[in-house]
């Protein structure tokens, strides 16, 4: 019934539309391209090879919807970092608080991990389907006790260097032969860790140097903090276990040599590495690509002159070609890094190297570009006509998303923004910042310390080059959600305000300064006061300045325990008084004037002159006399002039006149 009904309806609709169409066609004779439905038209003559291609069904990953939703949301500039709780009490406001809170959260996690690994029996019950291995307690002690090869493999996997070496010695003494593979793995372990046990992050008592990078990231990634370098460079000791075990090997193969050479290069025994390489050649063995990479890294250390360094590198590359070893990306990066130390030779050879590697289908990564930029833009050196290299690099790199392939990738953004800062190139800086937003590139910005450096340089460049509206827009975007500026950068911001004549924003900046914890930095505060006192502004602005100045005064007075105390200087006191006078706050200014005496500072004559003018407007004779007495008390040379002014401009009683004349005689006598 329903189907017949719908059929009838359809029929009716068709008929009515046909009628309508016929009528319309009659009415508009020549306009046919809109009104004719497709069915009416003759099918166009289709070319015979045009087939309908049904595309293959797309398979979406499980997180595709979530990723699509995430791409619609940008960073919230009013929120703090994702690590922290969304509560005003728990949000960090200064960079030291940021570090403190993230470190305390991390140390809480370490405390929990300690309990979990100490009492694993309470955490064995497995609710999760599928199994989640990272939520199970991890075994920190080796399980297999008897002296065997399996026990050695276990200790190697648990990265226990000393225990593995001891076990190997025991195996040798017992006479059991250890296979070459396992010995190679042992050599790898020893050479990677430089013959000492890696620092255990979860056991607090064994940690001997407190670097914040170790605490921040569980994997021991070396940051550019100054304290991190002493963690790494334990030197390669003579006759250490690696060499000893290597000597015990009857037939060392490529892998053994490779491990030894790479360990030597990592820990600074460069000439030894080259002699080991010659041994390898004498034994008619071939080296593999990582050995060559290590040797190329070591090449600038063993030769002195630029030409010799380059010749050694070319020699190594030729040997690589002879031994039919294909270079990889790390080879390219090693060559470029070595060229950084080759001066002018580096500049001439860098581009040919890159083009040759391109021909071998090795695409440069961000680390290669980083080395390239460092070759051409040495810090502190003057630039002659090299500004287009950064542009070319940015042309290559823009719009691409990079994955981390080399540890030096993380240096790219910092180097690029340093070059932009040095060459004052704001366009390229914007492009660098845009590159950060592409795909996964944000991962390559580095740890918190490096991020701080990047943002500091970027923001300083903005303050220097852009007008104040753009600067403030970026300021509101970056601070304090991503970046907590240091006092130097805030001084740059103040200069930008000064340049663009927006001094009325100073009270707001002062509030931000207080919140960032820079409210007690003497130079910054004095600069603020000077800027406020320099010119006379209009009335409301002057009022805000006065409020701000009084707030600043409070910062000098309160001595919070642990906070750096600021001391008044004559300049800062004078500025404060001028600001208050300009806002007609005579009473407050009078209080401040008394502070000169308490803090042993001498006011200047212009200040007292200004004060007298202000007093004259109100006509308070007693205050004028007190002012003159203060001036006399400081034995200022301008006191007679002041006395004259008072005598001329004020109506004095007899007593006051006599007092003044006494003072005049006094000052005259003391001159």
């Amino acid at each position, binding site marked *: 019934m329903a189907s017949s009904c719908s059929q009838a309806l359809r029929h009716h609709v068709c008929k009515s539309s046909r009628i309508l169409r016929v009528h319309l066609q009659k009415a508009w004779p020549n306009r046919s391209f809109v009104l004719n439905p497709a069915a009416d038209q003759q099918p166009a003559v289709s070319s015979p090879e045009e087939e309908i291609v049904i595309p293959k069904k797309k398979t979406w990953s499980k997180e595709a919807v979530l990723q699509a939703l995430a791409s619609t949301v940008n960073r919230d500039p009013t929120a703090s970092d994702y690590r922290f*709780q*969304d*509560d005003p009490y*728990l949000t*960090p406001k200064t960079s030291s608080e940021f570090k403190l*809170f993230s470190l305390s959260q991390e140390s809480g996690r370490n405390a929990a991990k300690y309990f*979990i690994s100490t009492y694993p029996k309470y*955490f064995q019950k497995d609710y999760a389907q599928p199994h989640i291995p990272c*939520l199970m307690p991890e075994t920190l002690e080796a399980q297999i006790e008897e002296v065997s090869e399996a026990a050695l493999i276990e200790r190697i996997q648990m990265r226990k260097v000393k225990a593995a070496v001891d076990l190997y010695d025991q195996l040798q003494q017992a006479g059991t032969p250890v296979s070459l593979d396992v010995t190679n793995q042992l050599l790898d372990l020893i050479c990677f860790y430089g013959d000492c046990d890696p620092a255990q992050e979860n056991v607090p008592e064994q940690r001997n140097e407190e670097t914040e990078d170790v605490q921040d990231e569980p994997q021991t990634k070396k940051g550019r903090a100054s304290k991190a370098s002493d963690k790494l460079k334990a030197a390669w000791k003579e006759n250490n276990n690696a060499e000893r075990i290597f000597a015990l090997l009857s037939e060392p193969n490529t892998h053994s040599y490779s491990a030894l050479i790479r360990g030597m290069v990592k820990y600074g025994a460069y000439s030894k590495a080259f002699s080991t390489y010659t041994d390898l050649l004498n034994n008619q063995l071939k080296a593999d690509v990582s050995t060559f990479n290590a040797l190329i890294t070591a090449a600038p250390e063993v030769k002195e002159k630029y030409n010799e360094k380059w010749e050694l590198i070319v020699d190594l590359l030729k040997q690589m070609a002879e031994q039919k070893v294909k270079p990889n990306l790390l080879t390219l990066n090693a060559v470029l890094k070595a060229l950084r130390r080759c001066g002018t030779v580096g500049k001439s050879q860098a581009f040919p190297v890159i083009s040759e590697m391109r021909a071998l289908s090795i695409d440069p990564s961000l680390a290669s570009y980083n080395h390239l930029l460092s070759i051409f833009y040495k810090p502190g050196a003057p630039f002659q006509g090299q500004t287009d290299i950064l542009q070319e690099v940015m042309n290559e790199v823009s719009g691409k998303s990079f994955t981390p392939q080399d540890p030096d990738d993380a240096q790219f953004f910092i180097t690029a923004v340093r070059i932009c800062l040095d060459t004052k190139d704001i366009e390229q800086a914007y492009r660098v910042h845009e590159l950060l937003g592409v795909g996964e590139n944000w991962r390559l910005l580095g740890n918190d310390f490096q991020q701080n450096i990047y943002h500091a340089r970027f923001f300083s460049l903005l303050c220097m080059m852009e007008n104040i509206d753009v600067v403030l827009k970026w300021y509101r975007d970056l601070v304090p959600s991503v970046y907590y500026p240091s006092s130097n950068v805030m001084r740059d911001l103040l200069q930008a305000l000064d340049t663009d004549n927006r001094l009325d924003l100073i009270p707001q900046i002062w509030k931000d300064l207080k919140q960032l914890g820079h409210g007690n930095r003497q130079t910054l505060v004095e600069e603020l006061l000077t800027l406020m006192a320099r010119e006379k502004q209009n009335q409301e602005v002057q009022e805000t300045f006065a409020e701000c100045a009084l707030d600043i005064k409070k910062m000098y007075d309160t001595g919070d325990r642990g906070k750096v105390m600021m001391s008044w200087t004559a300049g800062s006191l004078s500025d404060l008084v001028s600001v208050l006078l300009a806002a007609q706050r005579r009473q407050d200014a009078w209080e401040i004037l008394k502070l000169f005496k308490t803090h042993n500072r001498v006011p200047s004559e212009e200040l007292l002159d200004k004060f007298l003018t202000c007093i004259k407007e109100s006509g308070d004779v007693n205050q004028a006399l007190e002012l003159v007495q203060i001036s006399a008390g400081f034995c200022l040379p301008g006191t007679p002039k002041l006395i004259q002014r008072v005598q001329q401009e004020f109506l004095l009683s007899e007593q006051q006149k006599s007092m003044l004349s006494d003072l005049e005689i006094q000052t005259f006598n003391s001159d």
Partner: protein
Amino acid sequence: MATSLVRQTKLLSIVTSQLSSAACFRNIHCTAACLKNRAARIRVAKGDKPVTYEQAYHPHHIGHRKGWLSQHTSNLQGEDGAAERVVEDVFIRRFMYGTFHGCLADEIVIKRRGNLLVICAVMIQKLLPSKFYFLIGYTEELLSHFYKCPVKIEMQTVEEKVVYKYL
């Protein structure tokens, strides 16, 4: 006296067996008395006892004036695991009460979204923020490893306990 007791118990057992055989199932109550009309209610007293919103409204107001403190899908038709969720909740509440001792301003709300366990707590600003973060990191890590699912804490702080009225 003992004999009379023995006789009484014998009588009791006979009575109960007869009763149960007669298909009316009233048994002996062996646990402590948990009266429905006294649970989660703070009785009106002199007028000096401060009481939060959660405590002031009685359980029959849940769904009308109060929300739920524990949100999961085990009580839906065809879903299982309700008892396990209850046990987990009890453990989590005791754990939070002990770890953040004296800092809790109100009951904890536990939400389960998929695999994720979200513990929402309101705290008094009794500790320094760094100490709060230490305890948050510790709790999240420990409970994640214990329950084999990601555990997140969403914390809000107030200056002092928010009093709704005085009973």
